[in-house]
């Protein structure tokens, strides 16, 4: 389960940002997970909960924004929603596209307290 590695990275980053901002505790961690990533939201939340123990984020709420896949066809230039295993352009049936969104694996924001 690579979500544990991702959760560990996430916690490190959140703690680093918290220390830079003189936070004593982290109450909220907001992440964006795109549909075309190898990350499963439930598995990430589970791993985060386990690994957060003993960190500044021990009692933090993890908020996961799931970002749907959106593509732009390079042939007819239309933009369309897609699923990771169905990415052909619905307009011209071309399969050459750019990914507009859906590859996010991002720490968006944290929130915390400066008091204990």
């Amino acid at each position: 389960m690579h979500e544990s590695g991702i959760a560990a990275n996430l916690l490190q980053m959140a703690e680093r940002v918290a220390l830079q901002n003189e936070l004593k505790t982290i109450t909220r961690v907001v992440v964006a997970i795109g549909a075309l990533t190898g990350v499963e939201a439930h598995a990430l939340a589970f791993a985060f909960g386990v690994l957060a123990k003993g960190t500044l984020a021990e009692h933090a709420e993890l908020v996961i924004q799931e970002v749907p896949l959106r593509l732009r066809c390079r042939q007819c230039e239309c933009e369309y929603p897609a699923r990771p295993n169905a990415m052909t352009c619905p307009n011209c049936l071309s399969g050459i596209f750019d990914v507009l969104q859906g590859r996010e694996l991002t720490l968006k924001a944290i929130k915390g307290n400066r008091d204990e």
Partner: protein
Amino acid sequence: MSELNPQPGEIPVEERILSENDRLAAANRACFAAAGLRVLNLVSSPGSGKTTLLVETLLQLKTDLRLAVIEGDQQTDHDAQRIAGTGVPVVQINTGQSCHLDAALVGQAYDQIASTRPQLLFIENVGNLICPAEFDLGEDAKVVLMSVTEGEEKPLKYPLIFHLAKVMVLTKIDLLPCLPFDLEKCLANARQVNPALEILQTSAIHPSDLHPWLTWLSRFMKDG
């Protein structure tokens, strides 16, 4: 229900969660480029024939190129021993409970074989189609392998790695006469998630069936 909208007092970060791995991968890539080294990251499910393909490939190429291999497995050095039998330098990484290689592990492993001045490095990732996909190692290209015994829907079940790969090596095609495998459907499924994907049909049992892969490697060494 979590509140998805930004809340007062939030500190914006907007940083990729794997940015540390990305940074180390970029350092690997710069190091490989400075050494004139080309690097492939081989990803597949367990049992697709990565090591067998690799052993045959090394035997065919080792007189013309300086080669090296980084082997990733959760446990054992069984595969590394098979590679070592070809005489090509190999470093085994045991990832323990981890299901993929990362850029830090690859950087450390490369340090152990850099003195052999390889021109082409194969990184054999841990057998797994999901976890290795998100972890950039600093390679020039990802190669996804799948065998004809795995079922033609595999690219649709694990789209990300097929989407990110530059080339797909279909292995064990010598078994096609024994299987109800729909080759055309498999190729269509793979192109559904990656229209630009090059697909090479191979078998490591008959050396002549490796030709499409060896030709691709030769082109990759010349122009990337």
